[in-house]
């Protein structure tokens, strides 16, 4: 048993009445409307997705969103072949063709995997130092061929791309509970508001939970004429509050018979009086040997695949954790019919606030090794405190819950500094000095949905239950017409 589709109540994002056929590595598969390539592959028990850059290590799907580090695929054919797309962001559509990266002759049997066996002899910079004589350029072509990821088409791009400039009073990045609340508050105060959502749907982490608050906020945002851009990923904040974002249109216009010269992506350059970074947090992985094997995933991702896409990423799960969020994931996966073999808890029992609830918790322990190369089939758990013998546990999925780290990239890019919160074990944005040219504001509530780690008194709440205050400053920001450039 391995990954596969769950029964009907699971999968709030997918439409089971609309089947979608796609191809991966030359084989035909079926998914549903609303699936991403990652969820559709997992639903078809395809866990080995690609090979790594240098050592050709087997790689699978690790996350469920923009943070995907390993599930890279080449999508499209001919001139439309686009390399290295994250399978978690590619929406499945009829006739989609995708292929693994960096493997020959196939992803299952890859000649380049010999590099992994020789890895001890291939330290960083090995080539440049070893292949100097007689001439580096003799060796360079085949070294370049052996490494690297996807392949570009090499043909002229048949599609079009456009650029749009826009202005806004308040620009909110992220359409989760925090972002939606901000956008609604700003728009209600009369500010022209733009809301960017990187995914096709609004709601962020609560989206697949079909949270009534999200539905109400979305309706309110539409009523207040908030300009909502979906599938739009903010990638940079520049001088004087210029934010650039790329809107992906290909998934809307995609299809096997796509006409020549459609609009594929749109670059937005938005000059905003205030930018609100409400783009949530990323789950941190736990560190153990071979934690890049297909079948090792982020805990929250497995939960989202189960409830949002109706996909069980595994049937027997070991969770490696150092924080209370793992317990909520464990119980919700169990509710989806997934067996939790063990929860490997790094902390002593006294530090754990969440209820074990019949789970088998191995306290003060860590994963020492992972069994299985192309897919996980077990792991060895050792006690950190010592004293007990290592235990082998059979499993087909290892989930990793190392707490959350707020996505502070936009804030940092705008010159903002971070500060460390000891009680939540995370870096959070520091307030910016007033009047600075780039004002990226992180709303208080953007930090709220991230579950505090290693703090018993606050821990164990799921993001859905986390208290979320409407941003107190959003309305005042919108009212104050103080220009960011003072003249």
């Amino acid at each position, binding site marked *: 048993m391995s990954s596969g589709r769950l029964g009907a109540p699971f999968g709030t994002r997918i439409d089971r009445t609309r089947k979608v056929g796609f191809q991966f590595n030359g084989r035909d598969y079926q998914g549903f409307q609303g699936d991403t390539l990652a969820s559709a592959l997992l639903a078809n028990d395809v866990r080995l997705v690609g090979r790594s850059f240098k050592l050709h290590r087997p790689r699978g799907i690790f996350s469920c969103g923009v943070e995907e580090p390993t599930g890279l695929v080449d999508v499209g054919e001919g001139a439309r072949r686009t390399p290295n797309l994250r399978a978690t962001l590619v929406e499945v559509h009829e006739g989609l063709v995708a292929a693994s990266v960096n493997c020959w002759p196939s992803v299952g049997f890859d000649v380049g995997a010999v590099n992994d066996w020789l890895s001890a002899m291939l330290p960083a910079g090995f080539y440049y130092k070893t292949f100097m004589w007689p001439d580096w350029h003799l060796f360079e072509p085949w070294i370049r061929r052996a490494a690297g990821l996807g392949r570009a088409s090499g043909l002229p791009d048949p599609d079009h791309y456009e650029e749009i400039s826009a202005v806004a009073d308040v620009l909110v990045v992220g359409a989760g509970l925090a972002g939606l609340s901000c956008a609604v508050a700003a728009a209600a105060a009369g500010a022209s508001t733009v809301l960017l959502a990187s995914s096709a749907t609004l709601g962020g982490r609560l989206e697949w939970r079909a949270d009534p608050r999200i539905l109400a906020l979305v309706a309110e945002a539409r009523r207040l004429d908030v300009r909502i851009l979906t599938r739009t990923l903010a990638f940079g904040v*520049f*001088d*004087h509050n210029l934010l650039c974002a790329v809107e992906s249109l290909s998934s809307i216009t995609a299809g096997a018979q796509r006409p020549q010269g459609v609009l594929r992506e749109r670059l937005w350059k938005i000059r905003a009086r205030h930018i609100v970074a409400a783009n949530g947090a990323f789950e941190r992985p736990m560190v153990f040997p071979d934690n890049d094997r297909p079948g090792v995933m982020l805990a929250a991702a497995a939960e989202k695949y189960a409830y949002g896409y109706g996909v069980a990423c595994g049937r027997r799960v070991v969770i490696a954790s150092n924080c209370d969020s793992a317990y909520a994931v464990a119980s919700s996966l169990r509710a989806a019919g997934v067996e939790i073999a063990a929860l490997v808890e790094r902390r002593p029992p006294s530090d754990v606030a969440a209820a074990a609830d019949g789970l088998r918790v191995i306290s003060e322990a860590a994963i020492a090794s992972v069994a299985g190369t192309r897919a996980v089939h077990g792991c060895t758990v050792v006690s950190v405190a010592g004293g007990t013998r290592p235990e082998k546990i059979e499993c087909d999925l290892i989930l990793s819950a190392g707490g959350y780290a707020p996505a502070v990239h936009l804030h940092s890019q705008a010159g903002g500094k971070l500060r460390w919160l000891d009680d939540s074990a995370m870096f959070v944005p520091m307030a910016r000095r007033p009047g600075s*040219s*780039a004002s990226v504001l992180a709303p208080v509530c953007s930090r709220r949905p991230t579950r505090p780690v290693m703090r018993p008194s606050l821990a164990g709440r799921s993001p859905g239950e986390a208290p979320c205050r409407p941003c107190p400053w959003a309305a005042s920001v919108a009212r104050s017409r103080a220009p960011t*450039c*003072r*003249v």
Partner: protein
Amino acid sequence: MMQLDCPWCGKRDENEFVCGGTTHIQRPPLSASDRDWGEYLFFRDNPKGLHLERWRHASGCGQWFNLARSTVTHDIVSVYAMTDPAPR
């Protein structure tokens, strides 16, 4: 990209403008020493912080104006006419 406030046209993106370098540089008298002439021609301050500079709205009204800008944060502290004295 910075946004500059042209005194005639209002806020425009930086790429409509041409920077004319440091402003308020006094031409020395003809009797100045070679050293002073050299300083005048070739040497400029490169401050970390407030910098007074000339800009021209090249793709707009074509007018010159002065600007006080922080080289650290790109805050524009003041925009003033070419004939105005340096702000203090």
